[in-house]
């Protein structure tokens, strides 16, 4: 035990190994009730794939059903808004499935009302070119990940007041040979959560993948942050998918107004 300057009591880690043998024994004696609770939690945390319109679950793994050459994943509301308005408005995208999941950190279990910017995963594929989208590894596939992060997470030696946020940084796997459309993410910055998991998976399975990370100072849906993704439109992974840019800007503005959250805390 140790006390700090502010009066909080902090338990100091013990380097001599585990202290109390008695505590361990107590934990091992798991009752049937504990096991039942654990089983229920595990069932709740299962990832379910289903079709939103018919609400039937997809038994066949999406992976085998839709092999593809390009997989684009957008994480976070700004990245999703960018993809919805710039990429998905050109051509007809058909929704092929939806992934529903829950864990203890989810704030809502409502899966019925989903907007394009909600935190669930919806899979789309391009009707005219079904080879775009999918998630089958080990085929000729290129993965693009788009996400946002707050600029205060960005570690740099230069003064943070000289940073022009929002700005784009890229991180790619070894097999990705094309030049990225922005500068690479420097050390000691690291990528967290789902984008990191996707990139690690791609690196292990030697899939060419690139992550475009937008550092912004506005984490909620914002026109300028979404605009910062525009250089990605010129990359080979998205080329040919984007046709109508002025219309995209209109769709984006509409998304903004429908999703504006009124908050009176900040003036």
């Amino acid at each position: 035990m140790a006390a700090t300057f502010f009066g909080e009591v902090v338990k100091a880690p013990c380097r001599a190994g585990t202290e109390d043998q008695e505590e361990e024994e107590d934990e091992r004696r798991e009752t049937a009730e504990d096991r039942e609770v654990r089983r229920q939690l595990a069932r709740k945390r299962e990832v379910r794939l289903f079709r939103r319109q018919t609400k039937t679950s997809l038994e066949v793994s999406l992976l085998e059903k839709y092999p593809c050459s390009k997989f684009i994943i957008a994480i976070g509301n700004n990245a999703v808004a960018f993809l919805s308005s710039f990429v998905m408005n050109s051509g007809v995208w058909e929704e092929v499935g939806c992934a529903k999941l829950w864990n203890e950190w989810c704030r809502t279990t409502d899966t019925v009302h989903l907007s394009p910017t909600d935190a669930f995963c919806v899979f789309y594929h391009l009707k005219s070119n079904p080879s775009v989208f999918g998630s089958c590894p080990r085929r000729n596939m290129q993965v693009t990940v788009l996400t946002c992060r707050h600029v205060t997470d960005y570690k740099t030696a230069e003064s943070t007041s000289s940073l022009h946020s929002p700005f784009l940084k890229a991180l790619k796997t070894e097999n990705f040979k094309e030049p990225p459309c922005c500068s690479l993410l420097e050390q000691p910055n690291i990528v967290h959560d789902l984008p990191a998991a996707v990139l690690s998976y791609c690196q292990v399975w030697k899939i060419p993948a690139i992550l475009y990370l937008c550092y912004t100072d506005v984490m909620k849906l914002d026109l300028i942050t979404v605009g910062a993704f525009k250089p990605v439109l010129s990359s080979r992974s998205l080329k040919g998918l984007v046709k109508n840019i002025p219309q995209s800007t209109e769709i984006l503005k509409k998304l903004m107004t429908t999703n504006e959250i009124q908050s009176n805390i900040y003036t």
Partner: protein
Amino acid sequence: MASRYDRAITVFSPDGHLFQVEYAQEAVKKGSTAVGIRGTDIVVLGVEKKSVAKLQDERTVRKICALDDHVCMAFAVLTLFKGLTADARVVINRARVECQSHKLTVEDPVTVEYITRFIATLKQKYTQSNGRRPFGISALIVGFDDDGIPRLYQTDPSGTYHAWKANAIGRSAKTVREFLEKNYTEDAIANDNEAIKLAIRALLEVVQSGGKNVELAIIRRNQPLKMFSAKEIELQVAEIEKEKEEAEKKKSKKTT
């Protein structure tokens, strides 16, 4: 390293940062954008209005506040806060009381610099007290002094204040400030109308839905404060768009 020295306001980090104050500056960026411009005979304050909820009474969502009106309405001090709304209300109340107290004691209205210094000192006190947190607000304070010279001051959560010719606070303040640095010229503020247009143009750089979400207030020398109505702002915006089109036509003529 930051996490060990950022829990208490009264603790410096080894490299000299007061992290709570710096985090308070992040709170300021959560508000919408505001811009202040000091012209030769006019001061302009413009702010991006966030859309009000349907059932909310719009009158109670005022961003630009008067701190003091002199008896004959010749001088006034206007202010605009960005950051935590509740903090702004508290500071505005204290500042208004101070304006009246000053007038009663010294029989002269406050100068813009005096009231700015008062607000800044108040903010600084809260960065040096145990058990309190800094005010999460930045302010733009404009007005005319006795000598008829227009003034624009900006304060931030650390309690510093500076005089500016033109400045922006809130979200995307940097983008607006860069625009102002490029476009604030002697010509641009030569007459009052130009100064007003410069403020609106600066805001339109970052405002997401055009002129209808802009609130504007001006004080001209020896005249009372004027809040622009939505229609007047629309007129200005229309003029600005016309000027932009003409400038683009000229540019394309030059290149062909």
